[in-house]
């Protein structure tokens, strides 16, 4: 991983069109400003993880797999 130190107000370029600016650092959080073309999708990484998990969860479930989960859940509840 490339590591770069930047101060508040300083910027970084990712390729020719994406600009990242450090706006503020407060209480362990970094506030970033991003300038990028409209077609660039910018997502918190957790949302991408949740999206992938949702897509996997929406797949067909085999009745046998479902039965086994139900049985395990009942054991768990005891």
């Amino acid at each position, binding site marked *: 991983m490339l590591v770069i130190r930047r101060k508040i107000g300083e910027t970084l370029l990712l390729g020719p069109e994406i600009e990242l600016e450090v706006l503020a650092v407060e209480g362990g959080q970094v506030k970033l400003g991003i300038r990028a073309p409209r077609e660039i999708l910018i997502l*918190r990484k*957790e*949302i*991408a*993880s*949740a*999206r*992938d*998990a*949702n*897509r*996997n*969860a*929406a*797949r067909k*479930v*085999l009745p046998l*797999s*479902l039965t086994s*989960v*139900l049985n*395990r*859940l009942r054991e*768990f*509840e005891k």
Partner: protein
Amino acid sequence: MPVLESASLGTVEYGEKDLIHFPLGLPGFEDERTFLPVSRPGEAPLLYLHSAITSDLFFLAIPVELVDPNYEIKLLEEYRAVLGLNDVAGPGRATDLLCLAVLCVPDEGPATANLLGPIVIHQTSHIGVQAIREDARYSARHELFR
């Protein structure tokens, strides 16, 4: 009584107030704004969150405390606003919240629960949101029976 025609569950009757509205949709399913929670006999505590517009789309979910009894809900400001929890005069009371973990049950390998983004439903207003956390405390693929 309205009915939902499900490719997997058959015909399900429901009342208008049973529907849960998701103003933001779900990540990856942004157009899916309305779901019907369906519980089937003999399958408790499992819930089918069935799409009201797509006949073959549902998510399996269970109360999050069955996955992790110590699970701590943490709602970002944007999700609190959707659920109406910031409106002091409104219906928003944290005690009316139902918090569900979406399950992924693959053909092979362990079943997992999404603890990174629990489904939070306000049971009075029937509004729901998938509340994605921003801390790294919980996984989107938490193994169910470890």
